[in-house]
């Protein structure tokens, strides 16, 4: 399911990813994106800025457990919800 939030996050990821034409979907594994782990942090900060959410460092660490793009979308969705 690619709602507005998923699509926006996927677009941000695509700007950093090295997929050689492959599609990024919620099922795409994060380690298949060809993104340096530190760059993943950069994407998280981008999301922070875009959605006015705050991701504490321990949250960032927790995100180390995220497996795929869909997990990332769900985590952002939760933070936006917590803010509202």
């Amino acid at each position, binding site marked *: 399911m690619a709602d507005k939030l998923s699509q926006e996050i996927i677009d941000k990821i695509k700007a*950093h990813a*090295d997929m050689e034409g492959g599609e990024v979907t919620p099922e795409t594994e994060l380690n298949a994106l*060809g*993104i*340096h782990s*530190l*760059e993943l*942090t*950069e994407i998280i900060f981008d999301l922070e*800025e875009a959605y006015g959410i705050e991701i504490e460092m321990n949250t960032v660490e927790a995100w180390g457990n995220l497996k795929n793009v869909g997990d990332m979308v769900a985590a952002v969705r939760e933070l936006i919800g917590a803010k509202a």
Partner: protein
Amino acid sequence: MGRSRVVITGLGGLCGLGTSVREIWAAMRAGRSSIGEITTAPLHELKVRIGAEIKELPEHGLEKKRLVTMDRYSLIAILAAGEALAQAGLKIDENNASRIGASVGTGIFGAETVEENYRGLFIEGRSRANVFAVPRIMPGAPAGQVSMEHGLRGPVFGVTSACASSNHAIAIAADQLRLGRADVMVAGGTDAPLSYGVLKGWEALRALARETCRPFSADRDGLVIGEGAGMAVLETYEHATARGATILAELAGSGMSADATDIVAPTVEGPAAAMRACLADAGLKPEDVDYVNAHGTGTKANDEIETAAIRRVFGAHADRLSVSSTKSMHAHCMGASGALEMIACVMAIREGLVPPTANYREKDAACDLDITPNVARERKIRAAISNGFAFGGTNAVLAFRAA
């Protein structure tokens, strides 16, 4: 027991003249200058419009995941090191990796990254710097990136002394070999300074040429900045012969000194002391040297003072020396200059050909050495020295001898 001889078994380089040692040397032989209009970087309102740039990088196949972590100056260092290691025919594996290191000079820093981030923060209103800003900019980055790309696990570090950085890096790499800390060192320098902020700083110094770099010519009016990287694979003679490597030349010695007078104005004594120390270290008499690759920046002050320093060290033999400034062709590549000039020295020795000082027009009584104007000269070269003098008064000179 004498100390170990240090030899060069591989060379690699990229600069305005070409993206391999073969291309660079072909241009030097032909006396072709690569100085021209800068087209690869946005110059905004800068007055300076000329430099010596690498128009197109060769295919390198590095993954995007790796490329995002490095500035241009690290990338070209990796490419130069790759060429040098390939020529050396050295197989790096679990057994020898910890005995192979790298020492990489830089006189600037990751300038392209500084530029992008300052513009982002100050002009475009971004709230934070790129997550890789620090690891891309830091002066130790090229050495670290070279080690990662080529799997070198021995002593690895950056070296910085402005325009003499390469020479210091190469000199100290030889020390690592002689001290037994490593069996092989990849040594050289890199810089990619053709970006707005760096050029703006040089513009303020009023040290830049208007049209081109004309070392030792009476109508010279300054230096031209270039980008590039150069690397050598250094190893002890014993190590090289034991593995049957082809020896390109010997790094016969090095000499270092400091002016300890002024942050920008050079002295005669400092450079002369470094040349003397280099000859002594290499066990060379002045009359054993046939070629001097001059620091030769093309500024009024440097070329006059360097001429006086060479005369002071070489005495009557100064008039039998062939001298040239290859900066007339590859421009002043800052922390990479000494490494590119090492390529000139080694190839000159191997091919018996003195690369010329290009763009030369008018005799200057204060620069009255045989500076090999415009056309290369055939001559047997037994030994060559390469001068590197720098802002800060930090001087380093290298000596090369036929293998």
